[in-house]
């Protein structure tokens, strides 16, 4: 049972101590990781994925329930506490979808029956359906990404979930996030997207390889987040229209104007 993880700060790219000395993430919390490209967001996620023990270049240390994880906890996929969706958009493994998923299920000690469930779930997130006998390497970026999401959600069902830039793949990001961040999990989302960033409880701001500060999502931001979701739904709706080959005939943004006139 994991109640919290602790990230003890290390050093930034210049070897200076990180401004944030400690981050504690409790069970059920969603944390964002934001910052410019190259600021060390993926490295922070990488440290957590490996449950770093001052053995990576940042010299960060990750504790589970306040204690150091064992070597086996860190490396054995059957015991792995962390599921990670990386930024990769393509598979490189030269095998069929079905074979790949059964192999991964075996590694994680999951039942083979989940293979069909993974494909079914992936197909709710992407456009053209993925089939068991498809070669992994011919899947599109969106299909690959959807399959990775479903694989993380079902086969690598771990208490800690790390998600790196889910917005980049043209898949339904809200649905994907919902699928990944099950009840009572610790979730970290690396993102450049304000829609996702404002959905989190807190966000770690990265700069120059170090954790610069932690921002809690304010009540005002929560309010804005709802509006952003509506804009996002609108964009999604338009995207589907364009994808289906239809004409876009009007733009209904009244809900935004209504809000601003109420403020006056």
């Amino acid at each position, binding site marked *: 049972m994991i109640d919290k993880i602790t990230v003890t700060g290390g050093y930034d790219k210049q070897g200076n101590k990180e401004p944030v000395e400690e981050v504690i993430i409790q069970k059920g919390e969603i944390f964002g990781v934001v910052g410019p490209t190259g600021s060390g967001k993926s490295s922070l996620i990488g440290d957590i994925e*490996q449950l770093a023990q001052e053995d*990576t270049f940042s010299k960060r240390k990750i504790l589970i329930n306040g204690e150091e994880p064992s070597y086996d906890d860190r490396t054995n996929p059957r015991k792995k506490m962390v599921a990670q969706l990386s930024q990769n958009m393509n598979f*490189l*493994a030269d095998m069929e979808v079905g074979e*790949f998923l059964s192999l991964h299920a075996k590694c994680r000690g999951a039942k083979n029956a989940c293979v069909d469930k993974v494909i079914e779930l992936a197909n709710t997130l992407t456009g053209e359906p993925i089939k068991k006998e498809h070669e992994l390497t011919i899947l599109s970026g969106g299909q690959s990404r959807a399959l*990775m999401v479903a694989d*993380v959600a079902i086969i*690598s069902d771990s208490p800690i979930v790390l998600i790196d830039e889910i917005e980049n793949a043209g898949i339904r990001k809200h649905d994907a996030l919902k699928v990944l961040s099950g009840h009572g999990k610790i979730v970290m989302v690396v993102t450049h997207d304000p829609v996702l960033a404002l959905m989190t409880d807190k966000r770690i701001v990265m700069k120059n390889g170090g954790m610069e500060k932690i921002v809690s999502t304010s009540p005002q931001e929560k309010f804005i987040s709802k509006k952003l979701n509506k804009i996002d739904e609108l964009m999604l709706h338009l995207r589907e229209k364009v994808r289906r080959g239809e004409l876009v005939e009007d733009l209904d943004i009244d809900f935004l104007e209504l809000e601003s006139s109420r403020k006056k």
Partner: protein
Amino acid sequence: MKMVIVAGTPGSGKTAVLIHALKSLKLKNLKSSVVKIDCLYTDDDKKFAKVGVPVKLGLSMDMCPDHYAIYNLEDMLSWAHSNDSDYLMVETAGLCHRCAPYTINSLGVCVIDATSGPNTPLKVGPFLSTADIAVVTKGDMISQAEREIFREKILEVNPEAKIIEANGLSGQGCLELADEMMKAKEVSEEEELRHSAPLAVCTLCVGETKVNKKHHRGILRRIDGFESYKGE
């Protein structure tokens, strides 16, 4: 003196990983000498020299680089002794996936590229199956699922291997590798290979360039599996 032998597929990041480990050992005031074995060309010796360790380069030219490395080990060891080093690091260019240049008391490190596909561990043979440590590089370029499958395949070939996931660019995992180097055994005067070098005793080995069977003598294995010795 401890001896570390680093083998692995071309382009897997052997040099990059070794350089990060060398830096970590240096910070602990441990001295290393490095021998880089390659076939025709390398400028890796310059990269090692930048770390500030003594470097020797061996080009095997038209000979098998592993054979060349194996019978030159005693000279490398005495050179490292004369440098007053704690470690001799030998990086080989093993190409045919059939040799394993590790000796009994050396630390055998196999560097293998995770992007090369999940069946690679099954293809590379003794330099993985007889290694003490398998360093998996470029794992950041594939999904966690592919990484986990890759790891499982390594354990299928070498259940005893300690697997270190490393990144040759950032140096991630190389501290752990340096720690393993510190735990390595001392080499003895009379080292022995863990695995025999491949059978290759025919006229091709001495320079014949004609391609068909009728031009060759020695131990010839036919594609249907039949093996014969032709000659006197």
